């Protein structure tokens, strides 16, 4: 099934020009239903589809650099494919590979494996997936059985306010169909986690999963895609997978969202202590200007930097976080936040209180690509290796 303005042949040509083509509504893959049933289908070579195979062929005058990059990409992809097509995936190997970034087209398969949502042994995967999706469907059904009046009004009200404010301006998220999916995901999660319920910012955290899982079934840009084009079974698969993976991520950071938000308080405090050690002049300057870490880093923890960097950047960052394990979203993250702050050290040290706060509220990361994110992750890793086990250096303990 191909929906959209161009036929599949033209689609492949467009793909060969590099980047995902943009259409008025988007293009659903012919084999979407097969991928629902068996996500390993994503690996099947489809000539012209994968961005890694198309570019070089069409450009005879490729420079050596491009050729080299291409071969590195192909090589990396092959390693991933080898790893995830084994009868039983070696998780250590997968983590190692994923730390340095997952190829876009394999991410919908790799993330669930890293999260433990998709079982590592191949034979049980399809049945587990089918069961988890059924389970989600029935959760949705029972939760919304009694209509609006049967809902927790306070939680529902907050979700209703926030869903239209999730990635405002991005077509995918402005659509009725996507917004209803997000509402269900957030509400079902909230009532199953009464200690926290829905907290603003959790909506942001659902979006990378949704976009990544959606990308498995379509041949166009997920952010421009009209989810009304999806069949019910594909939509439910995207929604259920998003729900379960979001749940796993949040399991590791629930302390961030319960009363008093102790997880965030702790992380911000530790971040301040860490920055005092890795960049003493910056810490002293912030202190002299009466800037408190809570004034800017609260959001960095609450939304995992999603308000500071693009979703594309976030997705690349999560490759590494997921490779580190789910506690990376609280542990490793604070090292990333520290490295992120220190990155602007020179600028910040020339600013006064107001300048600092305003600057940290709208950081110039608009042009950031994977490269900047990877630099940040490497810097964070260096700090992590140095300090993580040096607990006695932290006053709070």
């Amino acid at each position: 099934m191909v929906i959209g303005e161009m036929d599949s042949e033209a689609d492949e040509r467009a793909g060969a020009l590099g980047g995902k083509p943009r259409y008025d509504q988007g293009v659903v893959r012919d084999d979407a239903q097969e991928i629902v049933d068996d996500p390993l289908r994503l690996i099947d070579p489809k000539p012209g589809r994968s961005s890694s195979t198309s570019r070089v062929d069409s450009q005879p005058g490729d420079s050596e650099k491009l050729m080299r990059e291409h071969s590195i990409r192909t090589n990396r992809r092959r390693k991933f494919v080898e790893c995830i097509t084994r009868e039983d995936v070696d998780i250590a190997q997968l983590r190692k590979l994923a730390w340095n970034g997952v190829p876009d087209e394999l991410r919908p398969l790799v993330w669930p494996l890293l999260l433990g949502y998709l079982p590592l042994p191949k034979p049980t995967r399809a049945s587990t997936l089918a069961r988890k999706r059924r389970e989600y469907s029935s959760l949705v059904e029972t939760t919304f059985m009694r209509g609006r009046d049967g809902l927790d009004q306070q939680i529902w009200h907050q979700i209703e306010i926030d869903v239209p404010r999730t990635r405002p301006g991005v077509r995918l998220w402005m659509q009725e169909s996507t917004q209803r999916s997000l509402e269900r995901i957030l509400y079902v999660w909230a009532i199953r986690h009464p200690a926290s319920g829905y907290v603003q910012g959790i909506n942001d955290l659902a979006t990378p999963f949704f976009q990544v899982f959606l990308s498995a079934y379509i041949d166009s840009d997920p952010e421009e895609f009209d989810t009304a084009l999806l069949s019910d079974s594909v939509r439910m698969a995207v929604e259920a997978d998003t729900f379960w993976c979001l749940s796993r991520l949040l399991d590791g950071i629930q302390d961030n969202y319960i009363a008093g938000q102790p997880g965030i308080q702790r992380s911000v405090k530790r971040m301040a202590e860490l920055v005092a050690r890795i960049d003493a002049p910056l810490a002293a300057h912030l202190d002299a200007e009466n800037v408190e870490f809570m004034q800017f880093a609260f959001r960095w923890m609450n939304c995992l930097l999603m308000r500071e960097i693009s979703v594309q950047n976030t997705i690349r960052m999560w490759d590494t976080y997921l490779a580190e394990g789910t506690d990376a979203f609280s542990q490793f993250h604070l090292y990333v936040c520290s490295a992120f702050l220190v990155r602007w050290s020179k600028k910040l040290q020339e600013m006064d209180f107001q300048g600092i706060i305003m600057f940290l509220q709208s950081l110039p990361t608009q042009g950031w690509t994977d490269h900047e994110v990877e630099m940040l992750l490497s810097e964070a890793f260096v700090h992590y290796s140095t300090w993580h086990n040096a607990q006695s250096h932290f006053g709070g303990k």
Partner: protein
Amino acid sequence: MTEQSNFDYLFKVVLIGDSGVGKSNLLSRFTRNEFNLETKSTIGVEFATRSINVEGKTLKAQIWDTAGQERYRAITAAYYRGAVGALLVYDISKHATYVNVTRWLKELRDHADSNIVIMLVGNKSDLKHLRAVPTEEAKAFAAENGLSFIETSALDASNVESAFQTILTDIYRIVSSKSLEQSEDPIKPTSGDTIQVSHSVDQNQSQGGKCC
């Protein structure tokens, strides 16, 4: 890089009220003359400033916009400290946001300076056909509780300037009369007009445990 510090008074003001009543847009309308229908929710607090002139003096407002959701109260309440003014915002088209004003007043009583100047702000006055809170009712409530009152629309900009102008002027009057009374006090600075009414952040230095 940063705004020159040529102001006579620096006032810290907080924007509080339920989620979705338009606090962030009131702030962006006042400080940047911008309104955005597609605004993300505020997480924790956000900050902006603007200076205005009152009776020949430059008043600089340092405004902290807070997240409306209950869960954030623990975080946002810390910003009430040192605030000399609060704009307590509700949505004239959502009655529940007006009902909650009482709870917000309690928050302020519990966490803010007892002399804080409070203004009740009924926002979204452009939504005339959806009005759920009568102006007179809110006005009477404000009078009973010693608050000033205004209806605004961040969308069509009506009364936004006036709301901030009024509360900043009120604060200025109180502060300038106080500094007059205290001008004999030898501890207070007597030279010049600059009074840092708001030491917004310096009370918390003891918060983080330092390494040995």
